[in-house]
């Protein structure tokens, strides 16, 4: 999908916030000089095409009582697909990236309770036979995924 000027404006604007009022689209329409129906349609299209993964509230997982961590394993190239399937089979695994390092598989575990993190790690270790490096956040200095287009 090719981004239009309206799409770019919407992405840049809506990463910063969406009005919490009775007429949020009308408010934006006035501010951006784009008809409300057009904006809704473009967001729908960008969501359908996977450019936007979510529209709505972005929760603070820890404050909501859940567990969250970043974990990594060292996987031999010949076992990569097998281990990848095992790890991704867990509903609690949210993201999984291959990275160029000896620790080459990096994934985020998000659970309903903080205690469940260790349960998931134990299961992954048992099923893969690999050591899981658990690297939970200890201090947050900055977090803001905002990318201008």
């Amino acid at each position, binding site marked *: 999908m090719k*981004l239009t000027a309206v799409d770019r404006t*919407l992405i840049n604007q*809506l*990463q*910063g916030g*969406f009005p*919490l009022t*009775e007429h*949020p689209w009308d408010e934006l329409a006035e501010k951006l000089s784009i008809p409300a129906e057009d904006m*809704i349609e473009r*967001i*729908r299209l960008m969501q359908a*095409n*996977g*450019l*936007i*993964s*979510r*529209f*709505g*509230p*972005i*929760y*603070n*997982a820890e*404050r*909501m009582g*859940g567990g*969250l961590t*970043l974990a990594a394993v060292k996987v031999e190239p010949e076992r990569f697909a097998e281990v990848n399937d095992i790890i*991704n089979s867990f*509903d*609690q695994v*949210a*993201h*999984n*990236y*291959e*990275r*160029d*390092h*000896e*620790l080459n598989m*990096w994934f*985020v*575990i*998000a659970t*309903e309770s903080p205690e469940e993190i260790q349960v998931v790690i134990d299961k992954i270790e048992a099923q893969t036979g690999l050591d899981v490096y658990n*690297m*939970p*956040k*200890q*201090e947050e*200095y*900055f*977090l803001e*995924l*905002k*990318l201008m*287009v």
Partner: protein
Amino acid sequence: MLDERKLIAALQHGLPLVSHPYAAIAEQIGSSETEVIEYIQAMKDRGDIKRLGVVVRHRKLGYTANAMVVWDIPDERVDEMGHCFGRFDFVTLSYRRPRHLPDWPYNLFCMIHGRDRDDVMKNLQLMIANCCEADIKYSVLFSNRCFKQRGAIYIHSEKTEAVRA
């Protein structure tokens, strides 16, 4: 009365794309638009909701180079460095995490998103020049493939998308 569980469940896939999204949610959970707006505002005020808006898939927007830069910083300086790195607009995350000695000495993690790897490496040099000594120990882990990008947590047994870890 607004039922928090119902509200969170109704919002699990985000806001509906209609002209009056909060009224639509209110109708769905048997509440009023005002109550829904006030409740979401309260969740924002106490930090349970970081913001309202869109979350993008960076790769699809042309940010195809995604590097996790990890640093081995003396414990007494990690706070200072973490804040310094976080001030660059291309840095989307700056966290302290535990070392796993001896093979993983890194205790500060930054994410840098760029259009290509050169872009990322140039920005990395800018961070080093501004925040630390040139002989700082670090490693750059570019992502090669993304196997899963969902961002889910469980709230009241309902799947709800959330921020990154």
